[in-house]
């Protein structure tokens, strides 16, 4: 066991960080020592409670009793706890703070002000009678003080009568939003459950969000970088007199009559109220006024366009403030001094400071990641930790670059005999040193500089040391041994780095290596990353003006998944070197990763302006624009990037995705039709990207599928397997492609039936346990292979369970799903599997009892996922239970997943037809067509009913 004295010092927090870390490291191997430490800490806490000063608990008791009696509990408690912590647990003195606090509590409860008197008297006694004053002066002074304090108290109440009127609570918090109470003026961190009062202001920053739930159930979600104020008004809906709590609180209000949106974006779900009052969100540009509905309001700055061909890189244009209203359901009045419009469900209107709100237009019903065939395009998210590919971009240290990427075979991961299982080169960057040396995807790496390489870091580290270094590689090319020598270069995306002191350069190089290593499974541990952060902090203290250190520290925090710290440190790097595009790029990247795309795009824009020919900036900005549905802007940036780097496969791939996603989106100018030709352009870009770099083949396969080139899509998936046979994803993707082909064209709502040939394939196999037809055998093999390659991956097991559900082997399916659940207990993922299986069974019209059970389970696990309710509706429909189908489809529509709303209205129409309700069916089809005018199925169905 570790030396007791050392542990005593450890427990007393008397060790330097390095020694403390060392003790923790030793405790990891010393169970007895660890138990000793844990028991000591436990008793330390408990003794602090048992023997601590009684006054502290007295305060706690007062807080509890006040809260229970109906005072503002969270606020009061927070204040009391703050008072306690300020005193650090020292014996409490009741004077000013006590009176002040009681005043706060009293202001929320009529009558409690009276309770102040004895406490005030006690304080006066303690304070003045303890002073060395003349005895005859004391009573007069004390009386005067009591009167003065009383006057101040009542004056404050008169001046600000509504400041303590609670209207709601903060129901969720992400990051560190700030709350400012008018009553106190100070900014405090907004905590969950904190009360919101009239007059309060709440603000979110780059990495924050919050939700306020008003007392009537209305919710207001604040997005990133948003400030709202709850103004003090007299027209707010009051608590009903019949309420059991009526009269307890001083002027409690159901919800504020209005909200001032000072900046940012809010989304509100307004509870319908019977007293008819409206809920208004005001902005400097226009106001949105509703009775009960769900809508969003966003205040943004837009830059005036140049000639429309290319965004300016010379500097920012003067931004103009614009308010955008999006309505999910119901109706919202949107107005300013120039006019007003009535925006209805699924529409959007924009207002500027000098014009009336625009006529509402249909919301984009497609999100960017869906293509014509409703196939999802995978936009690969960036790895949060840098690898060889991105190190040169993010870390800012001039390292060598080889331009190839390896995959460690599954067998080699468990078997140290590397030569028996050489690593496969699965990616070679076009134009890289590896490509120039003649390496190709599929080569097997056997030796690096004459030594067998057992992991990726060993294989690639020699190339990292510096540009212009020679690296000898022995490979097996199509089974034939071959030796090549490559000369490393700087990464093509590397930017010039500032001169660094020698010690700093070495330290940063080591840090970069460790962070790169963290990108691999054989990389840094969390303890190593913590240690690295500590060292970098120390280095940053020594060189406080070097942005490179802050940037590296931020990258380290990012690797630790401490994204708020990472954001703060990237910002510090920018403060030190405001013109460095790398830091803006990094900040933008992390902001996008946490979902703050607006701010992320802003930072990317700055990076792009500083370095317009730097591909990462163009890629980052285009990607952010794409995610924000600004397709034309994204394409403009991509085209500009491709003019500088025409063979940049990542930009070509992104161009393909943006084009494919914008097929069904109207041109920005308005009035135009969807642009189906874009899918062909997308195919061209995706083919080129995949040809340059096979890494981008998945996008190509998805676009081929969306165009109806099913054979080509399948062939691309097979090619992916051929190039990277150790990767599990292509196997699973191919299996799903085959499965989708089987179910293709089956739309029970449209009345389509399974083709006899398909039925012949499926029925005997499902119903009588005959041997499976060849395609099912193949699917089975592919899914098993994916599972074998990713044995600890829950999705593999979910796929295989899904497959068994579909094939009717329900017991086996449940058994495998149990394994999947052990690996990933996230209920949504389990529900996803149930829903997939139920959907396939329903499409084929087999095992409908099991399908219903599975669909119901998925909805139970994730009741607010529209896709799962959609599946449930399909199952009911196939069972002929139309009333339940209607109910489920209506629930989906209410949930408001914009991507499939037209389809749901169309299906609802079909359901009404089956229920002999033609009038309702016509209304539903019209609704579907209002959302998507080119919806042919809906148009045909409508015409049939009308004629």
């Amino acid at each position: 066991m570790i030396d007791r004295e050392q542990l005593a010092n450890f427990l007393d927090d008397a060790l330097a960080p390095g020694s403390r870390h060392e003790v923790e490291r030793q405790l990891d191997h010393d169970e007895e020592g660890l138990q000793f430490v844990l028991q000591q800490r436990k008793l330390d806490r408990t003794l602090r409670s048992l023997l601590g000063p009684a006054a502290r608990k007295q305060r706690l008791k007062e807080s509890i009793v006040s809260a229970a009696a109906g005072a503002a509990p969270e606020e009061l408690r927070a204040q009391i706890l703050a008072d306690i912590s300020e005193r650090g647990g020292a014996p409490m003195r009741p004077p000013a703070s006590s009176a002040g606090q009681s005043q706060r509590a009293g202001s929320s409860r009529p009558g409690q002000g009276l309770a102040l008197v004895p406490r005030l008297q006690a304080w006066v006694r303690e304070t003045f009678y303890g002073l060395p004053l003349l005895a005859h002066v004391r009573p007069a002074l004390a009386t005067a003080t009591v009167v003065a304090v009383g006057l101040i108290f009542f004056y404050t109440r008169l001046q600000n009568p509504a400041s303590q009127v609670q209207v709601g609570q903060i129901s969720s918090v992400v990051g560190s939003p700030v709350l400012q109470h008018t009553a106190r003026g100070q900014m405090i961190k907004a905590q969950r459950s904190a009360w919101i009062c009239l007059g309060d202001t709440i603000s979110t920053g780059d990495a924050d969000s919050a939700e306020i739930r008003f007392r009537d159930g209305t919710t207001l979600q604040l997005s990133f970088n948003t400030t709202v104020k709850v103004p003090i008004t007299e027209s707010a809906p009051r608590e009903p007199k019949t309420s059991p709590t009526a009269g307890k609180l001083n002027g409690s209000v159901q919800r504020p009559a209005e909200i001032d949106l000072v900046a940012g974006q809010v989304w509100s779900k307004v509870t319908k109220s019977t007293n008819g009052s409206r809920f208004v969100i005001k902005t400097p540009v226009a106001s949105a006024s509703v009775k009960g509905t769900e809508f969003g309001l966003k205040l943004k700055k837009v830059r005036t366009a140049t000639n429309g061909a290319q965004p300016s890189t010379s500097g920012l244009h003067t931004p103009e403030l614009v308010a955008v209203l999006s309505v999910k359901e119901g109706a919202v009045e949107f107005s300013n001094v120039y006019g007003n419009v009535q925006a209805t469900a699924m529409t959007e209107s924009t207002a500027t400071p000098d014009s009336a709100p625009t006529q509402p237009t249909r919301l984009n019903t497609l999100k960017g990641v869906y293509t014509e065939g409703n196939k999802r395009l995978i936009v690969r998210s960036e790895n949060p930790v840098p690898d060889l590919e991105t190190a040169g971009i993010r870390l800012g240290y001039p390292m060598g670059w080889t331009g190839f990427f390896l995959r460690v075979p599954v067998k080699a991961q468990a078997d140290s005999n590397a030569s028996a299982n050489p690593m496969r080169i699965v990616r070679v960057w076009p134009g890289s040193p590896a490509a120039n040396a003649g390496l190709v995807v599929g080569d097997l790496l056997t030796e690096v500089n004459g030594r067998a390489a057992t992991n990726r870091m060993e294989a690639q580290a020699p190339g990292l040391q510096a540009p212009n270094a020679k690296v000898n590689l022995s490979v097996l090319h199509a089974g034939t041994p071959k030796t090549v020598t490559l000369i490393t270069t700087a990464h093509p995306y590397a930017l010039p780095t500032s001169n660094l002191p020698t010690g700093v350069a070495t330290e940063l190089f080591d840090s970069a290596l460790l962070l790169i290593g963290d990108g691999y499974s054989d990389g840094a541990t969390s303890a190593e990353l913590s240690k690295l952060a500590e060292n970098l902090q120390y280095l940053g203290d020594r060189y406080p003006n070097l942005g490179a250190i802050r940037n590296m520290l931020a990258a380290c925090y990012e690797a630790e998944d401490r994204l708020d710290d990472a954001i703060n440190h990237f910002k510090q790097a920018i403060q030190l070197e405001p013109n460095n595009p790398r830091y803006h790029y990094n900040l933008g990247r992390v902001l996008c990763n946490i979902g703050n795309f607006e701010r992320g795009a802003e930072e990317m824009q700055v990076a792009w302006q500083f370095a317009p020919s730097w591909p990462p900036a163009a890629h980052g900005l285009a990607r952010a624009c794409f995610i924000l549905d600004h397709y034309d802007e994204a394409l403009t940036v991509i085209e500009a990037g491709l003019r500088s780097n025409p063979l940049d496969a990542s930009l070509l791939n992104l161009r393909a995705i943006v084009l494919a996603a914008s097929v069904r989106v109207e041109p920005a100018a308005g009035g135009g039709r969807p642009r189906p030709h874009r899918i062909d352009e997308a195919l061209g870009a995706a083919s080129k990207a995949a040809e340059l770099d096979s890494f981008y083949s998945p996008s190509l396969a998805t676009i081929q599928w969306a165009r109806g080139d099913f054979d080509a899509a399948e062939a691309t998936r097979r090619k992916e397997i051929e190039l990277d046979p150790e990767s599990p994803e292509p196997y699973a993707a191919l299996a799903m492609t085959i499965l989708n082909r089987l179910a293709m064209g089956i739309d029970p709502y449209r009345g389509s039936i399974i083709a006899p040939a398909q039925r012949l394939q499926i029925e005997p196999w499902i119903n009588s346990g005959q041997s499976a037809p060849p395609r099912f055998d193949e699917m089975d093999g592919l899914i098993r292979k994916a599972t074998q390659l990713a044995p600890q991956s829950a999705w593999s097991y979910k796929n295989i369970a899904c497959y068994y559900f579909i094939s009717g082997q329900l017991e086996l399916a449940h058994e495998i799903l149990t394994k999947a659940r052990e690996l990933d207990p996230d209920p949504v993922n389990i529900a996803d599997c149930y829903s997939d299986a139920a959907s396939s069974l329903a499409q084929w019209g087999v095992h409908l009892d099991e399908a219903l059970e599975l669909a119901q389970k998925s909805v139970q696990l994730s009741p607010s996922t529209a896709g799962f309710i959609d599946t449930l509706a399909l199952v009911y429909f196939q069972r002929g239970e139309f009333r339940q189908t209607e109910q489920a489809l209506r629930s989906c529509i209410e949930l408001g997943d914009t991507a499939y709303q037209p389809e749901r209205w169309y299906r609802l129409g079909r359901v009404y037809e089956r229920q002999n309700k033609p009038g309702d069916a016509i209304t539903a089809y019209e609704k579907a067509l209002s959302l998507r005018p080119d919806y042919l199925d809906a148009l045909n169905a409508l015409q049939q009913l009308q004629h």
Partner: protein
Amino acid sequence: MTSTDVTDTDDRSLIEAVQSGCLEAFEPLVERHLDHLHSFVSLKLPVPHLVDEITHETFVFAFHRLGTFKPGTPFRAWLRAIATNKICAEIERHCREERNRLAYVEQRELEISLHEARHADPRELDALQDCLVQVPENLRALLMLRYHDGSSSAEIAQSLQRSLAWVRTSLCRVRQQLRECIERKLNPGPS
């Protein structure tokens, strides 16, 4: 105040009073159970700055649900059950939020505490209080300086004219003795 000092009969009349609308009766209920619950939460929750908060939340929760409490059943046990649920939820939340930034010991402590909180032995606190009575006078003074007055080890060393090392090791020793005493009381060997 140990559990034996608080009779269920006393609680019953207060609870019935609250249930019948006399809200003032809640204050003595808090008074009677606050010390015990605060120490119980301290024992089970390894996040010191949240002890007051959880204690507070437990009482307020109990107040709002007092209508569902059956008079005649042990009120203190009910409070402990509420607190245990809140402690478990808090530890889970804390683990999620702090997982990547806690030191090793804190993390292990959270893991173990979550298990322990779910299997809380209500006698542990009473045993500790009994054991405290048996602490020798000189060590009791040390404990009071530390936990009642909130003195640092350096301040205690100066006050008692002892070395810093003595203060630290003595505090460890007395806590260790208390631990052993608790173990004996909870698991008495064959006499």
